[in-house]
């Protein structure tokens, strides 16, 4: 019993939080970093009272929780379907209800950020006599949890054959796929949920920022901070791209393509990845930024992902190491943005990224230290 819990915890829950650390950092900043410490409780109480008292806002919040449920389900199901997790199919020896119990044990942990917040919201609703809102939140979250548990159970029982989550296919495209775009096709083909949900979250965040924040005077720094968080929310996608590159695009190493060309193609990839945000941000023009500020936003979404991508060539990084670097870079950039030194730091970062890329691109290979031979 204890062993099962430990294995499930290690394989599914810890993995989920490790993989999504960038995503949680993004929400941590949004929920706790935008107001001063003393105002934090009042800020969240006001936020809760706002959505508890408005049907539309409550629907939006429940919609976001639903998206988070999809995100959890996507990760756990993909994890369960990985060949190396095949040993978990031994759980099938248990009765269906027992499997549900274990899956609930998993889901309660990955869904914790939402259900804890939802419980507090229910408490606030009851305290304010908003029983209908409290009831809706309770029902919605129970339904989301039950649905996720059913998905996981079905996945284990049928080994994924009945999972229909975001399985739509793109129509065949008549044009040639360009080499720089292969990771984007991969994301769309294999990591649809991750891609769609990250984009939804970041666009909703950008929408909220533009709607709720009104600067006293033109100042690009808040928008740069906003984009910093948006890039951080993509840190998992950047890791996915790098993994795909090593696992499936190794053949491209043998092609006669110069290093500057390879590096520019990587930057182009990230420019395309952030096009939705770069277009949507024009909704904030001219209140939040002037056209002169725009190149700096573009520079930011080119440089930071390229830097995060390039540092992963230096050696086979553990997820914790990578995320530590992401956090440090975010913290340094935060202060540089505040002191309007962003351009210079970004320029230094792109130089560093190229140095890492140039000297490690062909030298990188999987860590064989503990294997004593080829993997």
């Amino acid at each position: 019993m204890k062993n099962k819990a430990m294995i499930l915890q290690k394989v599914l829950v810890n993995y989920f939080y490790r993989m999504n650390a960038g995503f949680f950092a993004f929400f941590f900043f949004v929920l706790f970093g935008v107001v001063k410490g003393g105002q934090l409780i009042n800020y969240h109480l006001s936020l809760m009272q706002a959505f508890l008292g408005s049907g539309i806002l409550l629907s939006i919040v429940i919609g976001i929780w639903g998206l988070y449920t999809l995100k959890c389900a996507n990760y756990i199901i993909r994890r369960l379907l990985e060949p190396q997790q095949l040993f978990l199919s031994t759980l099938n020896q248990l009765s269906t209800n027992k499997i549900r119990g274990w899956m609930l044990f998993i889901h309660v942990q990955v869904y914790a950020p939402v259900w804890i917040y939802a419980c507090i919201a229910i408490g606030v609703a009851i305290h304010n006599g908003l029983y209908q809102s409290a009831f809706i939140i309770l029902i919605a979250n129970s339904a989301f949890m039950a649905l996720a548990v059913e998905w996981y159970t079905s996945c284990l029982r049928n080994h994924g054959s009945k999972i229909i989550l975001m399985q739509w296919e793109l129509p065949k495209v008549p044009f040639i796929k360009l080499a720089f775009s292969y990771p984007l096709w991969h994301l769309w083909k294999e990591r649809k949920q991750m891609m769609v949900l990250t984009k939804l979250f970041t666009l909703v965040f950008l929408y909220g920022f533009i709607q709720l924040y009104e600067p006293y005077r033109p100042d690009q720094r808040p928008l740069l901070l906003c984009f910093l968080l948006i890039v951080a929310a993509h840190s998992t996608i950047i890791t996915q791209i790098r993994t795909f590159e090593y696992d499936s695009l190794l053949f491209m190493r043998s092609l006669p393509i110069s290093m500057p060309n390879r590096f520019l193609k990587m930057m182009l990839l990230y420019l395309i990845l952030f096009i939705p945000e770069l277009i949507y941000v024009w909704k904030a023009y001219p209140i939040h930024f002037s056209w002169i500020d725009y190149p700096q936003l573009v520079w930011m979404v080119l440089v930071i992902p390229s830097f995060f991508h390039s540092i992963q060539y230096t050696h086979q990084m553990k997820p914790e190491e990578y995320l530590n670097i992401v956090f440090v870079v975010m913290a340094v950039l935060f202060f540089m943005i505040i002191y309007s030194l962003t351009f210079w730091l970004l320029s230094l970062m792109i130089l560093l990224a190229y140095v890492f890329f140039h000297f490690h691109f062909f030298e990188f290979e999987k860590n064989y230290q503990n294997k004593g031979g080829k993997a």
Partner: protein
Amino acid sequence: MLQFKQVEKYYGKHLALSIPTLDVQKGLYWVQGENGSGKTTLLKMVAGLHPFKGEIYRDQINIKKERTLFLRGVNYAEAEPLYPTFLTAKDLVTLYCGTRKVATTKALEQLEQLHISHAYQQEIGTYSSGMIKKLSLVLAFIGNPSWIMLDEPLITMDVAAVDTVSNWINQLVEQAQVSFLITSHQLFQTPLNFTGNIQVANQSLSYAEL
């Protein structure tokens, strides 16, 4: 000519291959050795896929100092080729021809000769392992390489295709003076005019002329 100087390849702490010095003149070579002896490692180092210690030169061009120029003259086909399943043969042929700066005409003819041109615009995910192998061989013949590395070119292919590829090899060796390093555990049905054998054993290479 291929030159190896103080080449060592480690996987972690395990020495997989050590080549103190070796010059391989132009020609057609059969690289032989047991499973796990380092044949694929050798080919992958020359193809720029594996990092290693030491120096490898192709016609005085150092792979580490002038990699793009070096790779312009080296093509490689893997034993078990792996491509993203969403790509088509058209995507890959266009990529390879683009980087090697040649037209796609010859590659299309070769796909036709191997009877896979009907799948040119299909995703590789729909291909059989034999079709993927054929595609990888066509890609390895694109451009004007001076060396082509073929890792187990015979596996998973039908008899007719093996003959066709063998004829391509003989033609290129005789008419265009292209050199080959070929690993294979099987005998070729169509005789190849091998210049010599390279034996890979005990983490080292030995060369024998035929």
